[in-house]
């Protein structure tokens, strides 16, 4: 049986998470000796349901959802790697908004109260000196609906990923108030990990390691040569301007998970921060041992060695 990897992107995304699609397209999985099939679903909850139903062996899901399920005793899952720790978010606003300060008291779109994007936005805005209490929070569900509402003038600002911004038909119709770097600096948390059911770790551990190996090797290649990524992306996404891809490649130069993306300190910080959010108000954040397993990544790194330019700290645990 092929090893089914569940992803929540509908096509190769314009972020480092693309490494999963590209590893398949460019033959990294084959070379690592594992037959991988990508299963595409819309959102993390569906990916989780699919994992639990045995419809996939590994899924790229958001950390807060993973911790929620485990905290509620809903599943026995372990994070084993993170090809793209943190999505490149930014805060975009209507052209009428006068700078970051101008955000005070405006209508701000979020997914739902207590969602990850809501918590992050408040963190980032707080760091920029905007009182979250003063904002008119509008809950809007899907990211694309938030963007459409922004375009239609129904909200004044929202958090969106750089992929969404680039996809917008008229990116100039909105202004970027807080860019990707500033956003990450204000909210340095791990958002996405690849998780596997504990049972799969036991029965198909070799394949899990082979998948991790392929992802790490691909990440290292793209970290070494951004043009390589841009070329592979041009094949996967002929609809995107090559110039945009080249520019993204430089943006992401330091964002690759060349050592598997699991850094204890970052993860602990993420857990700490999550514990303070609304969603975990009445819930214990589970200890790391219950949701994370470093062993497969360690085996891989032992085999292929550690890269030492970025994504370092982990192995020093």
């Amino acid at each position: 049986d092929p090893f089914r990897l569940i992803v929540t992107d509908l096509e190769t995304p314009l972020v480092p998470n693309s490494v999963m699609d590209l590893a398949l397209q460019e033959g990294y999985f084959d070379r690592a000796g594992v037959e991988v099939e990508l299963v595409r679903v819309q959102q993390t909850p569906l990916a989780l349901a699919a994992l639990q139903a045995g419809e996939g062996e590994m899924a790229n899901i958001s950390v807060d959802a993973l911790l929620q399920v485990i905290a509620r005793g809903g599943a026995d899952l372990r994070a084993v790697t993170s090809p793209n720790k943190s999505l490149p978010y930014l805060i975009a606003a209507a052209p009428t908004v006068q700078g970051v300060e101008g955000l005070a008291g405006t209508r701000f779109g979020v997914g739902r109260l207590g969602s990850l994007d809501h918590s992050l936005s408040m963190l980032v805005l707080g760091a920029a000196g905007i009182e979250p209490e003063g904002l008119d929070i509008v809950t809007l569900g899907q990211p694309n609906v938030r963007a459409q509402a922004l375009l239609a003038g129904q909200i004044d600002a929202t958090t969106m990923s750089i992929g969404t911004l680039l996809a917008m038909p008229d990116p100039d119709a909105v202004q970027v108030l807080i860019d990707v770097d500033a956003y990450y600096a204000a909210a340095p948390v791990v958002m996405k990990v690849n998780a596997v059911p504990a049972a799969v770790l036991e029965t198909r551990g070799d394949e899990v390691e082979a998948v991790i190996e392929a992802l790490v090797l691909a990440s290292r290649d793209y970290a070494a040569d951004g043009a390589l990524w841009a070329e592979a992306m041009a094949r996967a996404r002929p609809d995107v301007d090559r110039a945009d891809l080249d520019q993204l490649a430089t943006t992401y130069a330091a964002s690759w998970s060349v050592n598997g993306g699991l850094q204890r300190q970052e993860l602990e910080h993420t857990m700490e921060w999550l514990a303070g959010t609304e969603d975990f108000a009445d819930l214990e954040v589970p200890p790391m041992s219950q949701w994370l397993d470093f062993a497969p990544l360690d085996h891989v790194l032992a085999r292929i060695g550690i890269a030492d330019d970025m994504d370092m700290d982990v192995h020093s645990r």
Partner: protein
Amino acid sequence: MRVGPSEGLVVVVARLAFLLVLVALWSLAAQTGPRGIIPSPTATWEAGLRMWDDQRLQRALGDSLLVFSAGFGAAAVIGIATGFLMGSIRMLGRTLDIFVYALAATPRVAFIPLVILLLGLGVEAKAFIVFLGAVMPVILNTYAGVRQSDPDLLEMARAAGASRFRTYAHVVLPGVVPFLVVGLRLGATIGLINTVVAELYTAVRGLGGLLALYGNTFRMAEYFVVVLMLALIGVTVTEGLRLVEQRLSRWRETV
């Protein structure tokens, strides 16, 4: 065929028995299914009490019922009128029906950008989305009902000098009632589903908002409470329509 006086009672008992079977099956599924997907009936009941106590359920219910009743009410009025027009002006019906079917087959989410643009994110937008879904079965069932009115009775009405309005009200409408009621019932159920969709895709609120919240945070007991709430509203509305239909169908021989 005559009907025993206790038939109503028998129906109630049979329904309760079936309900018990369903709850038992649910209980079994909760026990045997994987963790975290199906909550047990008792867990759901407790979650319901919790949500009732902290007023959450009531507030969400209020929001959703407002959206639903505005959208469904409009759908009933406009749907019946449109169905009657299409059914009685033959050319109009033949010309429009294909477009109504095309519209009915188009996923509501496809209109959401447009709706946001035109109506914003508030109650109007949501009610409109509910309306769009609920109006289809009302129009189409009314239309079909009007088209199959008894031509002999229509001719009799003409011969009796009945006005157009009188003919509709006294000859066509009573014959359409069974169609119409099914259309309204289907419209109500679709309207409820669209209430949830609307609440998810425009400003998130109400029962749809709770569904998103509990679904994304894996609180399945609370999630089930919301689902059951929706089913309950559906049952209430459709049973209400049944009473209306029963009143309008006293003339029928009980078969």
